[in-house]
């Protein structure tokens, strides 16, 4: 009864606990319910292939039971260790039932809790005497299964440099049995089992222990497959907690091999053994109960130890975090909803300028808020949202200085979800805020300036636009004027052409009759001289003289018109030399004797040499002519200059002129002297004026009757030599 009760109790407990675990971990239901695993062919009695070609062994049974307890169906395939290890890493299978946990493998797989610990052993040929410790293996050749944890161990611990690997341990043992190598290292139990199975008898495990090669065996899943891992752990826990694990263990490692029991045997058992058995069961139940109690006590002890360790870890962590908080660069605080300080850090006191040595916990900081009403708003907001981010508070330091702090806080709730305190960090952003305000001010100012400048520019643009319009009008006017000028120029060209034609006509047609008058007058005089008296001859003379005079007038006029028409070719002219050569050319010998000609140093002029020669010729011949009757026969040529022009003059001491007639001087055909006083046509000075005017200069004169005259003409200086 007790046992039944106990079993019932256990079954119920396990059932409840499984239900609880399943209920608590609902996401596990989502994992697929059929998984595939892979097993090795020759790792007895853990994993191997039985006579039917099926995977068998302790680990296989255990895995299947655990999987079943966790609600999983399992497909098993067989492969050599190296291959199935690879398959799991690549996800071709979901789990392996029998994997020794090593540091190397923890990078590749996740492991369930260990269900078995095995020790390794060194296997050698019987009679081997020189291997008594691991150190003796240094010079020996060791044969191992490739990828087995024994290989990892041998390589990790540098046991030997001479390592050979085979695909299976069977192969390894066979080569060892053939004397090809010195030793095999593998799990003791497995090695013995395997040797038995393959019938090798000349190989034995050595007695010494290999403490470094104690192997914890687990189920392995792909790295990160936490869901499957959890379910396998859960299944494993279940089969360990009920008798399944024990049964499996007994099956594979139990002292006796179970016999096949027939029905009659059972009856016999029932008849002969029932009562003793019942007694034994009763005793056994007591024994079992004790064992269960012992087991539970052990489990509880473990849990207590674990709990203590967790508490210790928690305490360490808490200290660590508190330390971090204390040294935060932001102020940290924890307050009750009423504002009573529970905790704070160094920066908190720094920012608020509190006494670092005072303890403010349990106290209120009533002066913290510049405006206590803001606190209500703040608390309401944080209560409503649970969290508050980058919240600016106008606060006061302990010394009353006003600052702005930026707060990040959250509500801390108790188990029942009631808010109990506020925790958060804050920064003094007063300077940042001021800088931002400054920046904003500067920005505003700049915008202001920009606006002003823009307005000014706009104004200027408008003005410019007005001037542009004005300019356009001017250009239009200019265009009109240019067009008019073109028209005038065309007219001028026309009239010049007409003038030229006129002059040509004058020079030819007007002179022909004069020639006839003169010529035939001459013929009359010659051919009829004897028929003419003195008076008749005088008449002929008058006719011929007048003809000659008219010819001169015509020539002078032609000359003048040529000046109107001709182009001016300016060059630099040595005026002194020109004046002198003209004088020497036109003065006759007598004049040269009589006159005192003085030509001063005068500057060169920039003018048309042919025309300027005509000027000097007319002026010098005038001076000679009008001095011919005067006592003082002296002519002076000189010049003065200013910035813009050179003024040449010619001064004589001749008859001079009355200044009141000065207007007439330079007009064509205008004379101030009678013909019989001084010969002349009245064209010479007009020509001079014309020439100087065409050079951009001016002509004027000063004179006094009987005292002489001075004629001036100016020529502009060469503005740009080379033009």
């Amino acid at each position, binding site marked *: 009864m007790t046992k039944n009760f106990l079993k019932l109790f256990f079954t119920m407990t396990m059932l409840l606990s499984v239900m609880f675990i399943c209920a608590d971990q609902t996401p596990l239901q989502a994992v697929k319910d059929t998984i595939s695993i892979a097993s090795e062919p020759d790792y007895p009695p853990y994993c191997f292939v039985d006579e039917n070609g099926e995977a068998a062994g302790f680990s296989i049974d255990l895995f299947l039971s655990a999987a079943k307890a966790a609600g999983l169906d399992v497909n098993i395939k067989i492969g050599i260790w190296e291959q199935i290890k690879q398959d799991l890493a690549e996800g071709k299978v979901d789990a392996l039932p029998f994997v020794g946990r090593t540091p190397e493998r923890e990078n590749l797989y996740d492991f369930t809790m260990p269900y078995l610990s095995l020790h390794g052993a060194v296997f050698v040929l019987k009679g081997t005497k020189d291997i008594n410790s691991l150190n003796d293996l240094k010079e020996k050749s060791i044969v191992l299964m490739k990828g087995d944890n024994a290989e990892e161990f041998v390589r990790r611990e540098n046991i030997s440099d001479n390592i050979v690997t085979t695909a299976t341990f069977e192969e390894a043992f066979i080569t060892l049995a053939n004397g090809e190598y010195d030793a095999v290292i593998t799990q003791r139990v497995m090695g013995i089992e395997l040797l038995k199975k393959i019938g090798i008898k000349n190989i034995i495990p050595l007695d010494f222990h290999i403490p470094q090669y104690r192997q914890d065996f687990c189920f392995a899943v792909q790295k990160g497959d936490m869901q499957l891992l959890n379910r396998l752990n859960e299944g494993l826990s279940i089969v360990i907690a009920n008798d399944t694990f024990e049964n499996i263990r007994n099956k594979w490692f139990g002292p006796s091999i179970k016999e096949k029991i027939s029905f009659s045997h059972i009856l016999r058992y029932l008849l002969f053994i029932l009562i003793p058995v019942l007694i034994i069961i009763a005793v056994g139940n007591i024994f079992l109960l004790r064992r269960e109690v012992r087991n539970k006590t052990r489990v509880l002890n473990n849990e207590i130890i674990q709990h203590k360790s967790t508490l210790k870890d928690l305490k360490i962590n808490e200290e660590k975090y508190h330390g971090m908080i204390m040294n935060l660069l932001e102020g940290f605080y924890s307050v009750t909803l009423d504002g009573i300080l529970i905790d704070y850090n160094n920066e908190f006191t720094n920012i608020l300028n509190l006494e670092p040595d005072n303890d403010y916990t349990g106290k209120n900081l009533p002066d913290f808020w510049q405006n206590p009403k803001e606190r209500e708003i703040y608390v309401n907001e944080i209560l409503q949202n649970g969290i508050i981010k980058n919240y600016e508070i106008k606060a006061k330091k302990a010394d009353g200085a006003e600052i702005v702090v930026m707060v990040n806080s959250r509500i801390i709730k108790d188990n029942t979800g009631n808010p109990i305190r506020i925790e958060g960090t804050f920064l003094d952003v007063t300077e940042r805020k001021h800088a931002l305000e400054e920046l904003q001010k500067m920005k505003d100012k700049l915008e202001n300036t920009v606006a002003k400048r823009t307005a000014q520019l706009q104004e200027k643009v408008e003005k410019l636009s007005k001037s542009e319009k004005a300019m356009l009008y001017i250009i239009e006017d200019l265009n009109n004027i240019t067009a008019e000028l073109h028209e005038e120029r065309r007219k001028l060209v026309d009239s010049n052409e007409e003038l030229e034609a006129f002059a040509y006509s004058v020079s030819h047609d007007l002179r022909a009759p004069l020639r*006839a008058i003169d010529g035939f007058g001459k013929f009359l005089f010659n051919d009829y001289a004897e028929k003419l008296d003195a008076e008749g001859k005088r008449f002929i003379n008058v006719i011929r003289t007048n003809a000659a005079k008219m010819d001169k007038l015509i020539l002078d006029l032609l000359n003048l018109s040529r000046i109107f028409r001709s182009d001016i070719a300016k060059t630099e002219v040595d005026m002194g030399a020109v004046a002198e050569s003209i004088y020497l050319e036109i003065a006759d010998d007598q004049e040269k004797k009589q006159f005192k000609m003085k030509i001063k140093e005068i500057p060169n002029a920039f003018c048309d040499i042919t025309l300027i020669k005509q000027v000097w010729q007319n002026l010098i011949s005038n001076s000679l002519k009008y001095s011919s009757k005067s006592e003082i026969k002296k002519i002076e040529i000189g010049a003065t200059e200013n910035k813009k022009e050179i003024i040449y003059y010619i001064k004589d001491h001749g008859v001079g002129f009355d200044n009141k007639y000065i207007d007439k001087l330079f007009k064509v055909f205008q004379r101030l002297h009678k013909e019989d006083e001084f010969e002349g046509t009245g064209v010479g000075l007009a020509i001079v004026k014309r020439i100087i005017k065409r050079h951009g200069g001016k002509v004027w004169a000063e004179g006094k009757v009987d005292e002489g005259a001075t004629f001036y003409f100016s020529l502009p200086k060469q503005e740009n030599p080379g033009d």
Partner: protein
Amino acid sequence: MDNLSDIEILLVEDNPNDAEMALRALKQNNLSNEVLIVGDGEEALDYLYSRGKYADKCPDHHPKIILLDLKLPKVDGKEVLRILKNDPEKKIIPVIVLTSSQEESDILETYTLGVNSYIVKPVDFDNFVDAVREIGLYWLLLNQQF
């Protein structure tokens, strides 16, 4: 003048007064024996090329000099000059241009056309006689050497 082939001087002048004066000036210089006066350029060319009313003239005969007025009816003096000076046979005949004025453009143009000399017809007849003597004699004598 009966024999066109005796003509030594060809005077081309449309103004009869000027022509008479020129003739007189030549006469005074004893050069007037074989002078032919023609009134326009076309007649001058007819004579020189033995055409029209001068068709009977021996084509090979050339006057010793030509006195050529520039202002002429029909074909003007410059055209006559241009034709003569472009004719290899006729261009050796000295041509003296008679002109009323010293208008530079006229004189320059005749020189480029190949004129040998020119006389400005002065109003004073005495000066004209002098000029004809100087230039006319020079070219007549020069031409006789050929």
